[in-house]
């Protein structure tokens, strides 16, 4: 077990190193001189020289990578090259909580909708409602999140005026209700992208579970259907759902990025998209590195948690 864990950690470190090398060497893909590519042509020569100095472009590539990696590990990701040339780390620290809140709220809302829908559907398997729900969730799988977000804005914001379109109230400034009010629609958009998959997978597993003998026993004892569904059927059916939540983390991050851009929320998504549109290179590098590291660590955490959730997987593979 210890040896497996050590191997696992070793591979994790290796993957992180390769990713950091990849993020660093993105700049090598820029055509021509990176300083010219970032600033554009026609600047005074000193400006290029300054930027080259700031980015350390005059040094050999490998020592530049080491310098960058060491300062990144110490929490210094350099400065943005777009005015106001703020510290990349500061911007990321202020943007990250917004994204996390949207993603987590979206995930929770997706579960809150998906679980009852899947239960109804599985309990009435083959019925008209089940077929409508199955068709509906399959259709929902094909709606990209930016389209869903725009349609929600069209129907809810313009239709009713209940929700704001593009402001944000920070958490921790006392106004929790205001924050939730502003986060609701973006989170709902994220939830729409996730819930169809959740509902479909949970429905499938629930249908299998509901055919088991212990469910028959519970029903024979005269337990009410809701009790059977929630306390007997849900837990044994939720294993694929947990796996799926891990697998769909990448999509969750993607839809959070799009939703932030769509609702102009000051999160990581807007940060990285705007930086990419402005050619703000250090910002893109820093943000991508932070997102990738978080993503790898969360995934590793989910992987490890399977061992606790389901003892059968402990010996399955390294």
């Amino acid at each position, binding site marked *: 077990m210890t040896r497996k864990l050590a191997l696992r950690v070793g591979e994790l470190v290796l*993957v992180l190193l390769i990713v950091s090398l990849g993020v660093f060497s*993105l700049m090598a893909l820029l055509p021509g001189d990176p300083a010219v590519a970032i600033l554009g042509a026609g600047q005074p020569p000193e400006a290029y020289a300054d930027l080259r100095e700031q980015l350390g472009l005059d040094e050999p590539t490998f020592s530049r990578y080491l310098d960058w990696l060491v300062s990144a590990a110490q929490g210094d990701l350099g400065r943005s090259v777009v005015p106001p040339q703020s510290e990349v780390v500061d911007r990321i620290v202020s943007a990250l909580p917004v994204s996390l809140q949207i993603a987590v709220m979206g995930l929770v809302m997706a579960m809150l909708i998906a679980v009852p829908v899947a239960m109804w559907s599985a*309990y009435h398997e083959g*019925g008209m409602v089940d077929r409508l729900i199955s068709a509906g969730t399959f259709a929902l799988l094909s709606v990209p999140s*930016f389209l869903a977000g725009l349609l929600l804005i069209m129907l809810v914001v313009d239709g009713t005026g209940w929700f704001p379109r593009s402001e944000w109230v920070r958490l921790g400034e006392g106004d929790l209700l205001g924050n939730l009010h502003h986060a609701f629609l973006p989170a709902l958009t994220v939830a729409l992208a996730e819930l169809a998959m959740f509902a479909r997978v949970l429905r499938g597993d629930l249908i299998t579970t*509901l*055919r088991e003998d212990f469910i*028959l026993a519970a*029903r024979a004892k005269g337990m009410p259907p809701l009790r059977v569904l929630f306390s007997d059927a849900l837990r044994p059916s939720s294993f694929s759902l947990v796996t799926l939540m891990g697998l769909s983390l990448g999509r969750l991050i993607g839809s959070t990025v799009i939703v932030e851009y769509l609702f102009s929320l000051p999160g990581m998504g807007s940060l990285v998209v705007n930086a990419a549109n402005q050619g703000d290179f250090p910002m*893109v590098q820093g943000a991508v590195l932070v997102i990738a590291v978080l993503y790898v660590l969360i995934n590793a955490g989910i992987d490890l948690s399977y061992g606790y959730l389901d003892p059968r997987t402990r010996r399955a593979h390294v």
Partner: protein
Amino acid sequence: MPMSELTQPEPPLLEAEPPEAAALAPAAGADAPAARPRRTAVLLGAGLTGAGLALLVVGLLAPLVTVATLVLVLVGLVLAGAGGSRLGRAVAGPGFDLTYWLAMAWLVLLVGVALLAPVLPFAEHEDVASTLLEEPFARPDLASEHPLGTNGFGLDLLARSVYGARSSLLIALSAVVIGTIIGGAVGLLAGYFQKSVDRVVGVLTNSLLAVPPLILLIALATVLEPKLRNIAFSLALLTIPSMVRLARATTMAYANREFVVAARALGATRGRIMLRELLPNVLLPIVSLAIVMISILIVAEASLSFLGLGIQPPAPTWGNMIAEGEGDVFQEHPQVVLVPGAFLFLTVFAFNLVGEKARARWDSRSVKL
């Protein structure tokens, strides 16, 4: 026999049935008697289809309020759908799946029109200078010169959607082909040689998977020029890891089967075993994954264009057309979002459906979507 009565409709569990379900219930009940004479079924199906299509046409053409149009179109669609599948089942047997055939028809139509777009009589799709006299934001009107309306520059939305299909499909298809070839080959090698080759390939695929897909695309878009070739290359990179994994797992499942052992005992070379014995078995699951992948890539490309990082306007893609509706435009001119949105949705839906069908048939390990 496990409890079959659980699948029977029980007293309502959570809430009352929605009205549309109640309205459709009698129609569903008519399915049950298998002995219903075939002629009646055909007539009923044809009648329903006809009525549905008639409602659809009335809904689209009659000068009605938006809500009434929507209701008519929806009811028409549902009726035509129910009638069509009834008709199909009566004529072609109980395995007939109308949605699948409609999806195939849409894909064939879309590919055909996209291929022939330059020779078809479409209005202007890209050159802003030539549409100075056209009406901007013309409403969709099937009888007019711009059946689906125009955008803010007077460019025809139907023509733009069709040209958008050209770039979307070209990018997604070439990315899938590149990704499948590279990923499949690498996965086959890793699955066959295992040991150290497998370890190295594993670490590399894990590193590619370590960056969330859209973030990887955005990072690449920052440095690469937004050209068709570059976007296809970036998207191909996204498909490689899952292709490698599937090819590797399938190869490993076959690597010790009798026919492979027999081939080896007969003195076949490694290359021959991989190409002639393993590849044919790995191919079908990979191709079915590739079909599902196409829809994921179409969405990814559209997302990138929507964020302003893909093909740049005025060249049309579905993503940058939808982005034109951002801000306040689409409140007043919903067609700017809805037309490319409908093209995108229908295409993704069709590829999902066809891909699911292919996976259910060819990939025994497939996970239910």
